[in-house]
């Protein structure tokens, strides 16, 4: 769904920043102009708040100026011409004075062109254990690729020492903090895994800390949520630490069917039993059945059409579930950049099987569509401008509103959220 070509998605640069900020004790440091800072500070703060009392005073320092998230070197015209290594040298002692965090320098698009050697400056300052730099330019790369690349680079830098494998333990990979209510998603998925008897050691890229990475190398498996966000990281774990990855071939755990398929795959590969989870899912399905059947809404959504734009790993299970479970017809599907060819092929194959191959990347949208599943802004805007009856927020960015109820898209609670949104439409 191109929405008339108006949706401008975030890219690998933003992905890199959010990846750093996804670490509990990680701090992205922006080497670039101040214009790139505001949005990212706001975004990081909204998606993973690390606010504390007295932040304004504590961070009334150069490079922070009262805002604790994503300090910035505020490059200007002179810096583009003469280089800006002096600002790096100036900020390092300030940044590294904080023992509770590690710092990762991310270059803005302009800074990436001028070749400041941040890694050398860090080494010269004796801060190599507290700071690192991602020197590569990730501009206009897919957001998910930038995220994955940066998580991997951080783990490489941390260089955890191989430990003995602890049987029955897993890491959760590929759950970005930019997914809706990722904290609830993490709780849900962790709970499901624990119900099979597995223990979650860490979640690189989703709220874990540096010390968790040290433990992560003892996990028996890596369990993949969304492959776009962790393919390279998973590969690294496999090559360096011999930790195999478990992927569900139906994509991410979105919707009852894919959640069940996901946990069954994990259980099967780990020699565990998924019956408890399946019982829980059945219980929820019964609840949904009773709720719908007991109202006037039994035919409310069947035959409605929908458009969806999301990462391929989400688009695949979502489309299948909306079609199979709710009887909704796909009108337009657009995968986000970073979707792998295999997943794209599966989506297209499914559309062919149901006679809806025209839905693949179809543009423009029909006159007014029933449902749109998209990032929060696109979903809201299409609803406000009367181009759909209901826009359902399923991705990043979604910065206009604040919420308190659980609203993830993954797992069982994710499914209930989606049902709530769909049936809440007037």
């Amino acid at each position, binding site marked *: 769904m191109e929405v008339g*070509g108006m949706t401008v998605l975030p890219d690998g640069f933003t992905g890199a920043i959010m990846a750093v900020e996804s670490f509990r004790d990680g701090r992205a440091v922006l080497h670039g102009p101040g214009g790139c800072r505001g949005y990212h500070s706001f975004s990081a703060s909204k998606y993973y708040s690390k606010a504390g009392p007295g932040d304004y005073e504590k961070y009334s320092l150069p490079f922070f100026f009262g805002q604790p998230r994503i300090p910035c070197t505020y490059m200007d015209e002179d810096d583009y011409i003469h280089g800006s290594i002096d600002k790096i040298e100036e900020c390092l002692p300030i940044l590294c004075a904080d023992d509770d965090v590690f710092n990762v320098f991310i270059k803005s698009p302009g800074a990436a062109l001028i070749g400041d*050697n941040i890694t050398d400056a860090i080494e010269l300052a004796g801060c190599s254990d507290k700071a690192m730099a991602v020197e590569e330019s990730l501009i206009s790369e897919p957001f998910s690729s930038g995220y994955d690349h940066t998580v991997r680079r951080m783990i490489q830098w941390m260089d955890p020492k191989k430990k003995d494998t602890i049987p029955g333990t897993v890491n959760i990979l590929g759950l970005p903090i930019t997914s809706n209510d990722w904290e609830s998603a993490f709780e849900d998925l962790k709970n499901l895994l624990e119900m099979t008897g597995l223990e979650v050691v860490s979640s690189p890229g989703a709220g874990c800390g540096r010390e968790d990475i040290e433990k992560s190398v003892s996990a028996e498996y890596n369990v993949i949520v969304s492959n776009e966000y962790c393919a390279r990281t998973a590969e690294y774990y496999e090559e360096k630490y011999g930790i195999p990855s478990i992927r569900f071939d139906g994509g991410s755990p979105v919707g009852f069917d894919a959640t069940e398929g996901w946990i069954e795959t994990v259980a099967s590969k780990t020699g565990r039993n998924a019956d408890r989870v399946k019982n829980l899912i059945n219980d929820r399905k019964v609840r949904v059945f009773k709720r719908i059947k007991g109202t006037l809404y039994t035919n409310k959504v069947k035959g409605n059409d929908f458009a969806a734009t999301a990462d391929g790993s989400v688009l695949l299970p979502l489309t299948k579930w909306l079609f199979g479970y709710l009887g909704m017809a796909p009108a337009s599907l657009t995968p986000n950049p970073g979707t792998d060819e295999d997943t794209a092929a599966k989506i297209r194959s499914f559309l062919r099987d149901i006679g809806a191959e025209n839905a693949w990347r179809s543009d423009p949208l029909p006159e007014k569509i029933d449902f749109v599943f998209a990032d929060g802004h696109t979903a809201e805007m299409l609803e406000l401008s009367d181009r759909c009856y209901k826009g359902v927020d399923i991705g990043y960015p979604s910065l206009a509103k604040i919420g308190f109820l659980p609203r993830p898209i993954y797992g069982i609670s994710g499914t209930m959220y989606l049902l709530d949104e769909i049936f809440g439409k007037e």
Partner: protein
Amino acid sequence: MNGALQIAVYGKGGIGKSTVSANISYILAGMGKKVLQIGCDPKHDSTRLLLDGNEQTTVLDYMRKTPPYDRHLEDIVLNGVRGIRCVEAGGPEPGIGCAGRGILSTFETLKNLGVEGLDLDVKIYDVLGDVVCGGFAVPLRNEYADGVYLVTSGEFMSVYAANNILKGIRNFDKGTPRVAGIILNHRGMENEYDMVERFAEAVGLPIVARIPRSEYFAEAESAGKTVSELYPDSDSAKEFEKISSHILSIKNGETELLGSYPLDDAEMGRIAKGERVLGNRGMPNLLPEGCLACMKTTTGKKTTTKKKIINYCAAVGAVYGCMSVTDAVIIVHGPRSCAHIMYTLKVIAEIKRGHGTDFRSSNVHSTEMDDTISVFGGAGSLEQKIRDLILEGHKSFFIVTTCASGIIGDNAMDVVNAVSNEYPELYFRIIEADGNITGDMGEGYIASAEAMLDIVDNDVISEDMTVNTVAERYLFRRGRLPDKSTADLFSELGIRINCRFMYETSMDSMKNIKKGKFTFAASDESESKSIVRLFESKTGLRVEKETLPVGLRSYKEFHKKIGNLFGIENKAEEVCKQGERKYLSEVERLKKKLKGKRVIIENRFTPDMFWLLEILSDLDVEIVKIGMGPRHERKEGLDPRYDGLGIPYAEDYDILDLKSDVDKFKPDLILTDSGLTSLDAKIMSYSRPDVGLDGVLKFGRKLANMLLVPAVEGWRLEE
């Protein structure tokens, strides 16, 4: 030395570095060494003599054509004569793109593809003639070149270039000596050796080899081979053997590398005159900081501790300005991240505006510059984007450049001019904001106003009972009230708004802006004033001195003025009185809650706060202090309109001053525009309300509520 020894060969353009590098590689390979030669010049002719005169695919071309996951080292590392591994970085055509960025990308790619895993004895980096930017200095970084050879002739400019390279090495020095020596490549001039020998002595470096001028080089070049291969017994070949042996002696620890002690300009002048110079060996680095290419010193480095911070860039301001036009397309020429940020902030504003919003007004597109485009130039992608949007039926285009496109010197103007010549009926304007290179957000905003006003049709005649407004800025004041308040102000008087310039308008409205009989500016803050001046000069229309009113006094003045202008004095007076009655009634009600309350005002960002002083005064609230914060844009002291009110004020007012005054005055409330929340006192933020009276009354109601509720809400008590 364990691992491969890494050697960089630098020198002035055309001095023979590639020839020297290739010959050294050939000799070393003949000595049984495993060699990798990397050409770091966009001309990509370094390894030709090792590949039988053939060219190889450059790394940058390969990157352009090959997706990251499909890249393999063997595709870009070719085996040349004697098994020498060959790589060419490549780069853009002269005059476009950023070759320095290309070198950075090349090294990153080689690293990612595992070049460090190759079994090698020596790596040779053959580098572009002058170290002109950070990218070309990459081989000088400590993780690359262990040692650097300078190739020079007896011509002064090549010696000067060699000296510059020593300065470059100095910039990367961590105290480890890294200069191997000088290679003299004779041009056949008189006293050639003397010049180089004096320079070498002054900088403390050996002349490792003296390569004679010879016809053999031209013959070998034609044959696509090195002199060492074609004429192994020649004097030239013997000199290359010397260099190769020197390299191996460094590798074996028999020869030491030396420090970099470049000469200053005066000393170089003496060298040019034929004098002997002592040099700066062992002296501390007295180099002025400056551009390596021209050695101009900076006038003073801006640091974030001392100088003005540019919070947002001109590109953002330009895009926001252009976003006020609902039927134009904005193309952000740069990475997708720039357009994403600008687009998202606009969308958030639209969402908060609520129903009735028009998604189509968020019509921002990106040329999606990536790493490869940064190297090769983005003109092509910009042109393609424009043409694609023309095919979609768009008629009006604003193109804004970012810092990425600015740094690489993309000539967006030429692209836009070429396309606009083909489509004279379409409207194109380019704002070369170049990110924050041309300034901050305000400057970009003003630049966008200029770009939009070019469309004004000077033949349009004004219509009665119509007005224009100028420079109302809605983007950071979200909601339906700003839409409504200005509209109501005029509609109550039966006046139509012809064009809300820089708020929300269409191309057609701007074109016919002269239909508006009178024009009012939103405020008299400095940015609005700049736009007003621009507006007047470009349209020939006069903007009224009185701005859109906020608060009762300005509301009354405004109605008097508008009544006179349109000859509707009675109507204006009637509407005004109605508004005034409503205002006074509400103020009376609020006064009961607010009378005698005491406030401190902290002001960092709000240039005009007369409305605030007025409403506080009307509510009988006492202002015990006004503090103008350190980042306040206007440092002229208090506005004369309220200077005589006897309110104590301070400039450069910071958080410590505020805390001290809180202890001293014990105010009931602190009013701040800085977003401050953490103090032991009740705090309320303020910003300029919407036009008219409803906005200030809403502020008054909130003020009363703030004094009622607890100073710290329960949720803030959580740690």
